[in-house]
C-alpha cells in the first residue's frame, strides 16, 4: 500500500534570508497518528501548509497517497485542514460549516444531512446544528472545526497546533477524543504541537523538528528513552547532561570520561565514537538516591542536596555534583536532608550517549528551546 504521505527533500525559503525547510524527507504510514513536535519557528507549520497546498515550496516533492501533488491545487488533494485558529465560517451556522466540504464535493443534500449529523455526533455536538460560531465556546468551536475536517473523509487529516488555545484540563480531554476518533475513523492524522506531553501521549509516530530540519523520527518511547541528539532529548522531557570524551565502545555500551568520573551508557548508532566529544544524558526519573555506596549500579555520582520542588505525585530534588553542575532527580517523595551528600546511581541501560547537540551545525540550542 502506498504511503499516506511521502515528503522528499522538501526545501522552502521565505524570501532570500529564511530557510524554513532544509531538505526535509520523511514518510507517514496509512492510518498513523503522526505528531510533528518542535519549538515555534522550527518549520512544522510551514511543512503542514506545504502538504495542505496553501504554500508553494522551492524544491523537492510531496506525495499524498502515492500521487505527487506538486501541480495539484489544494482543493484536489484529498486532505482536510484544521487550522490553529479553527477558522469557522462566521457567516454560516454549525450545520453549514460542517456541510461545506461535502457541498463543495457535490454531494446531494440528503446524504449531506446524514453525514453532517454523524460527524457532529462523533465530536459530541448533536443538537448544535442551528448555532452560529459566535455562540460557541472555544472548545465547541474546535470540535466543529474537527467535524468539518473529518466529514470529508480525507486521506490525510492535518491539524495545526489544535490544542494551543484551550486550557490544560480541556487539552487532556481533547487529546483522549482525538485518539478515540482516530481509532474509529482509521485514516491518517498529522498533528503539530510544541508541547511535549501532547506529542508523547498522542503520537504513534513522532517527529522532532528544529529550525527546518528533522532531529529524530520514531515511536514516542523510542525518542524519549533513546534520543539521538541533545535537542531531541531536551525537547521531549527533562534530562541531566554531562560532557566528555568516549574512551571505550563495545557493542552498544560506551564509556565516557567526564569531570564527574567515568560514566557508562548506551549507544545504538553506527558510528565509531572512540575519542569523540559527546554528551551523556540521563533522565531525572531514572536516578536512584542512596545513602551508602552500592555495587549494584553501573554509574555512581556523589551530589549534595541543594533544593527540591513538590509536584504532588512526585518530588524533584536538585543535587550539586563535583564539577558544579546541577543534577535533577525525580522520584516519589523520600526523606532527604538539605545540604547532605548522597550517592546518585543508575544503570548503563538508562544512560544515553548523545552524539551531537543537534542536527543543525553551529546552532545554539538554548536560543531555540527558550526562544530568542
Amino acid at each position, binding site marked *: 500500500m502506498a504511503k499516506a504521505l511521502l515528503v522528499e527533500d522538501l526545501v522552502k525559503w521565505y524570501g532570500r534570508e529564511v530557510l524554513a525547510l532544509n531538505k526535509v524527507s520523511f514518510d507517514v504510514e496509512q492510518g498513523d497518528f503522526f505528531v510533528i513536535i518542535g519549538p515555534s519557528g522550527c518549520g512544522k507549520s510551514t511543512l503542514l501548509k506545504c502538504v495542505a497546498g496553501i504554500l508553494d515550496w522551492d524544491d523537492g516533492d510531496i506525495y499524498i497517497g502515492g500521487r505527487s501533488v506538486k501541480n495539484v491545487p489544494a*482543493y484536489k488533494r484529498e486532505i482536510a485542514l484544521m487550522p490553529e485558529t479553527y*477558522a469557522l465560517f462566521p457567516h454560516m451556522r454549525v450545520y453549514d460549516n460542517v456541510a*461545506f466540504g461535502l457541498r463543495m464535493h457535490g454531494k446531494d443534500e440528503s446524504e449531506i444531512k446524514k453525514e453532517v449529523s454523524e460527524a457532529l455526533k462523533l465530536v459530541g455536538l448533536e443538537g448544535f446544528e442551528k448555532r452560529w460560531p*459566535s455562540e460557541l465556546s472555544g472548545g465547541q468551536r474546535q470540535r466543529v472545526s474537527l467535524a468539518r475536517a473529518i466529514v470529508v473523509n480525507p486521506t490525510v487529516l492535518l491539524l495545526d497546533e489544535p490544542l494551543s488555545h484551550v486550557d490544560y484540563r480541556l487539552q487532556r480531554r481533547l487529546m483522549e477524543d482525538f485518539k478515540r476518533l482516530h481509532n474509529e475513523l482509521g485514516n491518517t492524522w498529522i498533528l503539530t504541537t510544541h508541547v511535549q506531553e501532547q506529542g508523547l501521549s498522542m503520537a504513534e509516530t513522532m517527529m522532532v523538528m528544529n529550525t527546518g530540519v528533522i532531529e529524530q523520527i520514531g515511536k514516542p518511547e523510542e525518542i524519549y528513552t533513546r534520543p539521538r541528539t541533545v535537542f531531541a532529548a531536551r525537547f521531549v522531557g527533562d534530562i541531566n547532561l554531562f560532557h566528555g570524551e568516549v574512551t571505550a565502545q563495545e557493542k552498544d555500551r560506551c564509556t565516557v570520561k567526564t569531570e564527574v568520573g567515568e560514566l557508562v551508557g548506551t549507544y545504538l548508532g553506527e558510528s565509531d565514537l572512540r575519542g569523540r566529544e559527546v554528551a551523556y544524558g540521563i533522565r531525572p526519573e531514572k536516578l536512584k538516591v542512596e545513602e551508602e555506596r552500592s555495587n549494584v549500579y553501573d554509574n555512581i555520582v556523589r551530589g549534595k542536596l541543594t533544593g527540591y520542588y513538590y509536584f504532588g505525585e512526585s518530588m524533584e530534588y536538585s543535587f550539586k555534583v563535583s564539577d558544579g553542575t546541577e543534577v535533577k532527580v525525580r522520584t516519589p517523595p523520600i526523606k532527604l536532608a538539605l545540604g547532605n551528600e548522597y550517592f546518585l546511581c543508575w544503570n548503563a541501560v538508562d544512560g544515553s550517549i548523545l552524539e551531537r547537540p543537534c542536527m543543525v551545525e553551529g546552532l545554539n540550542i538554548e536560543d531555540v528551546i527558550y526562544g530568542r
Partner: protein
Amino acid sequence: MPRSPAELIAKYSKYILVLPPLIFFILFLLMPTIIMLLLSFNTGEATVFNPSQVTIKNFIDVLGRPMVYKIMRDTFGMSLLSALVALGIAYPIAYLLAFKVENPTVQSMVLFGLLVPYWVDWSIRSISWLSILGEEGLVNYILMGLGIIKAPLKELLFTRLTLVIIWVQTNLLFMIFPIYLSMMKIDPDLLNVAKTLGASPRKAFYNVTFKLSLPGVIIGVIFVFVSTLGDYVTPALWAGGLQMLGLTIQNYAWAFRWPLAATYSVIMLAITVVLLYILLKIANIKQVFYE
C-alpha cells in the same frame, strides 16, 4: 433619602455625558424631521404647523400627478445606477488592495492617493468637468487622438451619462472603503480551509470572500445611494435639465410653499427608508453591525 448634589452627579454622570450629543441629535435631526412631517399635513404657504388644518390633500395632489412618478423613477433610478456602477468599479479595487497588495506601505499609499481629489474645493472640481468631458476636453481629445472617434462626443456633457460619471467619481471612495474594510476582516485561514475542503478558487471566492464582504457592499451602496439622492446641485448643473425630486423640493421651498416641499420630502424619505430596510435585510443587519 436626601442626597447631596455631588452624589446625584456621581450617580447620573454617565447619562450626563450622553446629554450633549443627545441634545444635538434631538435639536438638529429629530425636531426638523418631525416639523417637516407635521408640515406636510398643512397646505398653502404655512410655515408653522397648524393643528386645526390637518389634511392629506397634499399627498393626494402629489401622488395624483403623473409627472411625479417620472421624477421618482429618474431620481431613484439615477442614484441606484450610480451606486451600482460605483460598486462595479470599487469592488475589484478593494479586492486588489485587500488581498493582492501585500506591502502595507503600498496599501496606505493607494488609499491616501484615493483621498487626494477630495482636497480640491467642490466648486473647482465641478467646473473642471468642463475641461475633462467638454467637446474640447480631455476625454474627447484622447479618444480622437487614438482614432476611436472622428468627431467629438457631445453626449458627455449635460446628459444622464454626465450625472452618472460625476456621481461615481465623487462617491467612489465611500464605496471602496467599506468593502475594503470588510475584506480586511476576513481571516486568510477561512480561504485556506475552504480550499482544502474542496472549494475551487471560484467557489472559495463566492462562498467566503464575496459573502463575507457583502456587509461592506451593502454599506457602500447605501452610502452612495443616499448621498446622491440628496444631491440636487449636481443634477441641476450637469444633467441637462433632468428633473429630480431634490430639485422639485428645492423649488417649492424657495417659493415658500413649505407644506408641499415637506410632502415631497416625506414621500422621498419613506421610499428611502423602505429601500434601506430591504438592503439591510439582504445583508443581515446583525452581520453589518457586529461581526
